[in-house]
């Protein structure tokens, strides 16, 4: 089985190599600048975590299959062909020590998108059966149950009922022809149900036409994290089907980093067609409402707040100004951490790392970087817009004995709205 699986993985790597990758690999100047940009290198000092090194299996396939000298040296026995053992050796590098945060891609002097290449390398790893157990489980649950955390519709319905009662409002489900279809992440349904109440309250005040879907409420995409486009496409298709069925104008990605990237950037490429609706992040919607004067603030937060940019929303997604506009609307004392914004350091748990228990110790070790960022401004509370960041940040703060509460940006807005 393993032999067949390896052949399939090898073929997947061959298949993934496109013009950008060929250009990237041939233009790498081996400067090593990406190492200094990577959380896993800076916090461990271990050179094996140099980002470009993590794509070595992909590089070797490119060299041996698509370049003259690579083919020649392979034919002459000067370079060894890729083996299953190589993939085993690279497993932890490709999955445990990369959050696909894309910081390395920003510093590369020749413009190589290394995060893009690691995403592609995972296609080969997963097809060859080298994905980590935690991610395999989550992916299987996403397909069979509908959510990586195993959340089913009744759980959501219970949260909806609970929220409707608490705030005395109606949460629209499966309403056709609304402006927005609101997506959620399992994490929000199970750990932070306040998010559902928050958007319901905000949209009520701003008079936004929206709905949830009982058929597709899960926005996260394990297929992208594990690196299987076939599965990722299947998960995106669910959302596309629901959006088309409900005839909405736009789909709102929740407070989750990779979900936004999955639907907005990879989505149309995965399903192979242009969407008939727009995809926006919740922060983009809220900032637009703010700009239109549709959000009325009752009181402003006096605590010193700072904002953690989730990588896929900020650096990879470009949603950088909106969260700042929104925080300044509801807070009097907003401070920026060093390197905030485009070059913010990853929480350390993105890209499927949080789902991979094998990486737990490494993940918490890298939190030292976030700690030093926080120590520089010493905030009263930390705001973010990604449930995955939030869970991990809470864990990290606890590990490092730091007493800083975590806030969701959407919830913070909702909490400061006037009732009328």
């Amino acid at each position, binding site marked *: *089985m*393993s032999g067949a*699986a390896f052949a*399939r993985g090898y*073929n*997947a790597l*061959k*298949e993934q*190599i*496109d013009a950008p990758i060929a250009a990237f690999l041939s233009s790498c100047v081996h400067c090593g600048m990406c190492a200094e940009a990577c959380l896993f290198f800076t916090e461990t000092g271990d050179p094996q975590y140099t980002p470009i090194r993590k794509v070595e299996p992909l590089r070797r396939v490119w060299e041996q*299959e*698509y370049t003259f000298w690579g083919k020649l040296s392979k034919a002459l026995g000067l370079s060894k062909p890729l083996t299953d053992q190589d993939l085993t050796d690279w497993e932890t590098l490709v999955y445990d020590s990369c959050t696909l945060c894309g910081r390395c891609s920003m510093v590369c002097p020749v413009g190589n998108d290394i995060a893009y290449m690691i995403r592609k390398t995972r296609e080969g790893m*997963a*097809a060859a*059966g*080298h*994905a980590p157990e935690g991610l*395999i489980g989550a*992916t*299987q649950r996403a*397909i*069979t149950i509908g959510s990586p955390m195993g959340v089913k519709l009744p759980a959501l319905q219970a949260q909806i009922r609970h929220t409707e009662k608490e705030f005395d409002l109606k949460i629209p489900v499966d309403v056709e022809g609304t402006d927005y279809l609101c997506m959620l992440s399992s994490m929000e349904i199970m750990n932070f149900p306040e998010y559902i109440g928050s958007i319901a309250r905000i949209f009520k005040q701003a008079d936004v036409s929206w709905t949830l879907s009982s058929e597709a409420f899960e926005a996260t995409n394990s297929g992208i994290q*594990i690196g*299987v486009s*076939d*599965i990722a496409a299947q998960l995106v298709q669910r959302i596309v089907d629901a959006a088309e069925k409900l005839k909405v104008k736009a789909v709102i990605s929740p407070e989750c980093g990779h979900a936004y990237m999955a639907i907005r950037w990879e989505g149309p490429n995965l399903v192979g067609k242009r969407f008939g609706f727009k995809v926006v992040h919740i922060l983009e919607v809220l900032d637009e409402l703010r700009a239109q004067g549709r959000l009325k603030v009752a009181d402003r937060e006096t605590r010193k707040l700072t904002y953690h940019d989730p990588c896929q929303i900020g650096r990879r997604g470009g949603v950088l100004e909106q969260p700042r506009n929104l925080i300044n609307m509801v807070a009097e004392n907003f401070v920026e951490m060093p390197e905030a914004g485009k070059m913010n350091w990853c929480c350390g748990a993105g890209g499927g790392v949080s789902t991979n228990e094998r990486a737990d110790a490494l993940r918490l070790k890298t939190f030292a970087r976030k700690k030093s960022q926080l120590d520089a401004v010493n905030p009263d509370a930390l705001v973010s817009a990604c449930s995955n960041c939030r869970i991990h940040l809470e864990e990290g703060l606890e590990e490092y004995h730091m007493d800083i509460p975590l806030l969701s940006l959407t919830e913070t807005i909702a909490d400061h709205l006037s009732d009328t």
Partner: protein
Amino acid sequence: MKKDQTIGEVLRERGISRRSFLKFCASTASLMALPPSMIPVIAATLEKARRPSVIWLSFQECTGCTESITRSDSSTLEDLIFNVISLDYHHTLQACAGHFAEHIREQVIKDNAGKYILIVDGSIPVKDGGVYSTIAGMSNEQILKETAAHAAAIVAVGTCSAYGGIPKADPNPTGAVSVSDLIKDKPIVNVPGCPPIPNVITGVLVQFLTFGLPELDALGRPKAFYGQSIHDRCYRRPFYDKGLFADSFDDEGARKGWCLYKLGCKGPTTYNACATEKWNFGTSFPIQAGHPCLGCSEPDFWDAGSFYSALSTPTENIGKTAIYATAGGLLAGAAIGGVLRARKQAAVKAHQRVTIDDLDKES
């Protein structure tokens, strides 16, 4: 004019400020591409130098060289340098004539034997006993040999005296030759050009007075002024490098000031200071005025084919060659690309849909 005065004494006597004098020394130093540290050296040497006697002989020439130097457009100091070299004999400039003039020449040779400088412009006709140009009953060759015999050094000003010039042009009816063809036992500095740049003539003289005989190239020219080709210092050079040429005097390229190579510019084979020193107080030079360089400071420039034929054209049809080469490259690239693409397509075809059941290695 007192004979034994130093140049410094003469300058002071004539009310030339030291400041103007140093400015002249500085511009001369920069003209010769010397470091600023050499300015005081030039000044000190010039100030102390005894005004050497100079005999200027004109043979088969058009007086263009004299025109050039008398219209010296820089500061009037250059004229003064001529005053401070004691110019004792010069057909065009001297006041006296006839026997009296010749007497002065003989007197200078006698009084300054071995110390005076001889400047020559014009070529020397040697055919038929030199009858084609005579002065006071003597052939040019006789006068030259007589005067050169006791000179300290000879400066051949202009292409005619340096290389024969236009009088020597085919079929050379007068058997014109250059100074160096006749005089073999004296240091000769060639200052070619038709005419030479005024500042270059004076610059060579200053260099000679300050540092002695200058370093010369293979054609006897001072390297300080003739060390680089017009082409290498031409402001239109970037167009040449980009392959942008004027094809006629009235086309788009000519109006845009592109390279004149195809119109016959001899800049690449001509060594002179025109492109940097320029003419008429640094105003312009032929190429800047839109005309190709004729190569007038090179030997036999008049016989080097038409002024308007390009020096050489690489291949008969460079456009076609380039197209074939590009097409060949594209084909090869496309072929290699096609092979690689097929390889990738094979991989895409071999793709087996990955389902959740394939993720576990054990399953």
